[in-house]
């Protein structure tokens, strides 16, 4: 399967494997297309997880990772793409409805927007919160002091 995808997309895909788990690093430009192909042709019909990681020292700071599973093939793969801070990604909700809340969580925690998402707003943190906690430049004890002051009426940090 990897060979077929590689022949179709050439340098945009780099298949790798670590500890027996296959994953591929794809170019940002290929993104909705390759996910569509994986779902429709390669039968990866279950999107297990969508998550991100922040590498502040790299030029392309964010890693977005889709973990996909195919019932028919009993196989799990990961698709990884790298984007910069200001880039956005097209939404995968038309491909897998699971990603509705998963993308909202990635937006909430990292600040990465997904174009075309039906409901792009924060999910775990309160709506008016400023800042994206899972980024590496957000401190472990840091809070949105303004929000806490206004809504909870206490000095933050207690």
């Amino acid at each position, binding site marked *: 399967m990897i060979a077929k995808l590689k022949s179709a997309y050439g340098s945009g895909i780099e298949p790798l494997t*670590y*500890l027996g*788990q296959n994953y591929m690093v794809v170019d940002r430009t290929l993104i909705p297309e390759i996910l569509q192909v994986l779902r429709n042709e390669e039968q990866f*019909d*279950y*999107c*297990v*997880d969508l*998550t991100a*990681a*922040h590498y502040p020292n790299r030029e392309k700071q964010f890693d977005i*990772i889709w*973990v996909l599973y195919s*019932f028919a093939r*009993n196989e*799990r793969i*990961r698709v990884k793409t790298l984007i910069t801070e200001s880039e956005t990604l097209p939404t995968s*909700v*038309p491909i*897998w*409805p*699971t990603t*509705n*809340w*998963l993308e909202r*969580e990635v937006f909430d*925690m990292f600040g990465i927007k997904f174009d075309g998402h*039906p*409901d792009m707003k*924060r*999910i*775990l*943190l*309160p709506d008016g919160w400023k800042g994206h*906690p*899972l980024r590496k430049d*957000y401190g*472990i004890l840091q809070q949105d002091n303004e929000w806490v002051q206004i809504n909870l009426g206490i000095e933050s940090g207690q």
Partner: protein
Amino acid sequence: MTDQNTSLSPLDLETPEKTFLDANELVINMGPQHPATHGVLRVILRLDGEKVMGLECVIGYLHRGVEKIGEHRTYTMFNPYVDRMDYVAAVSNGLGYCETVEKLLGVEAPPRAQYIRVILTELNRMASHQLWLGTHALDIGAITPLFYTFRDREEILKIFEKYCGARLTTHAFRIGGLQYEAYEGFEKDVKNFVSFVAPKIDEYEELLTTNRIWLERTKGVGIISGKDCIALGVTGPVLRASGVKWDLRKAQPYANYKNFDFDIPIGQSGDTYDRYLVRMAEFRQSLRIIQQAVDGIPEGPIMAKVPKVIKPPVGEVYHSIEAPKGELGYFIVSDGSTQPYRLRVRPPSFVNLQALDQMCRGQLVADVIAVIGTLDIVLGEVDR
């Protein structure tokens, strides 16, 4: 009902004319403090009389930033945090985490540890399903099963307490195996428990399975098809009750489940009654596994050779297990230091809760309560 794209339009709460009283629709808040929402879950219902037109879940009231904390703790220090996410089935969370880190390190727990792990995990599955049954029946109105299941759950919690000192947030496993040896009389206790609880499960079934009120309240409620389940990423007993025969213990076996013989119960119609039957059947399958495991615990070490300071090589791994609620996955990125670089928990309850909207459209308000119960969500896991 849309078929392949199960995305439904979100609630439109911003336009005033749609929510005023002279419209036919009523927007009601089932607030975070509610006896039947299994934790702090807020559901905004859009009703037409008593019928649900749509609903929106607002979560995050129990968000504790576990993933952020994970980046600032060493691998062993993070182990107790993991129990607190799905606090009802803490042992499973621990198993998933320990197995993922063991995968990163390339060690495998020794056979004796694997057997004891399986026994504790299956006991935990039973405890979690017992709590589910008690609270689900209580929400629907049947008060007796609550007392029965909690009384019997005490036996399991006693075994946990004798083993690792804690009843609920057990921290039972360590990276590489177990810390505590199975105490004197562990096998006898487990065997006694197995013979004690088998007739109790029949008791629960006697109370509910053919009960006319239970059938009226649960048959045809919250139907979701297998295809929709897969599209929405719903896993666990909900997926199995919709007819998809898939269980991670059989599809991608972990922790020597290969050695045990058990079935995967499935349902047909994907309604609440089928989910109830699937979970009741899972009780019996768990008992089968425990019986097989406790008869064959080998002698040997309980801890593999793991360095004192755990520093996995650079890389990332995703590993998931079949928790009582669904597929619980851990995605850990390691940068070679003693602390994970990124620790992601894929919570089954979070993804299952997305399906609530689709399952409740067109049903009555009372059915919303039944469906929240049947999805078996734990807010600790939804919010982390």
